[in-house]
């Protein structure tokens, strides 16, 4: 068995709709393979914003490596007094959050517009 170097099945797009607000839109599968790149992008972006919106609507799989990135990002956000808002739509994101009880710890919104427009 060999290891192939296929394209990473994850995309993270970063957008700044208003000053101080960063929206990171993630699509693809967040697992042991791809969680490190998500971690890197979020660690960069969190350094320079007031509100970080993490849009997971396009995520088709969220494993515990991905959940760990969410937990770490939430700790880092608290430390830096950044507000972290998740967009969690669809079973493949909502179910892992529910199973682990993280939906009660993290702030989630059904759509990106709800998350960006929420009172700060």
């Amino acid at each position, binding site marked *: 068995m060999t290891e192939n170097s296929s394209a990473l099945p994850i995309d993270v797009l970063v957008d700044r709709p208003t000053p101080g607000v960063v929206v990171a839109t993630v699509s693809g599968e967040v697992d042991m393979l791809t969680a490190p790149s998500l971690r890197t992008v979020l660690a960069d972006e969190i350094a320079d914003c007031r509100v970080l919106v993490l849009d997971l609507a396009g995520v088709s799989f969220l*494993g*515990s490596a991905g959940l760990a990135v969410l937990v770490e990002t939430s700790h880092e956000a608290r430390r830096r007094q950044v507000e972290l808002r998740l967009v969690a739509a669809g079973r493949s994101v909502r179910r892992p959050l529910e199973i682990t009880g993280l939906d009660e710890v993290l702030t989630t919104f059904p759509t990106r517009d709800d998350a960006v427009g929420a009172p700060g």
Partner: protein
Amino acid sequence: MAEVDVDGTEVTVSEHEPSTTTSEKPAPAADVEVRIAAAPAHLSVVRAVAADLAMRADFTLDAISDLKMAVDEACSELISRAVADADLVCRFTVEDEQIHFSAEAPTGSAVPPSRESFGWRVLTALTDAVSTWVVPGGDGSQVLRFDLVKKRADVVGL
């Protein structure tokens, strides 16, 4: 060594083959066996197989999602603990109202994953029965194994 967890999951962590889990029943031959290099790049293939089998076995959408996550969790753990250049072997058996999944890879440590870990709590939350243990492989090596059962429809929670 088998116990019943707070949420009803039958759980076993052992350094020997557990004596009271589903794995001990005379196992039917697997329906599907998947062998991959023990590397994160191949996790998605195993999830794809799990999803296809669960869909065809008419699992609820929540149960399909849970099985994918449980299979991913067990295989991720095996990959983290596998020796270099190891293969990871997964076996799926579709039974009446459930899917039985087992996976194994050679490991360097004789100690199975801790049941205090986050990963283990996730596995018990996602499945109806789960066990893990280390068995001796050939020439002094060790093999880590996971065995889990997921029912077609169920209510689970951490």
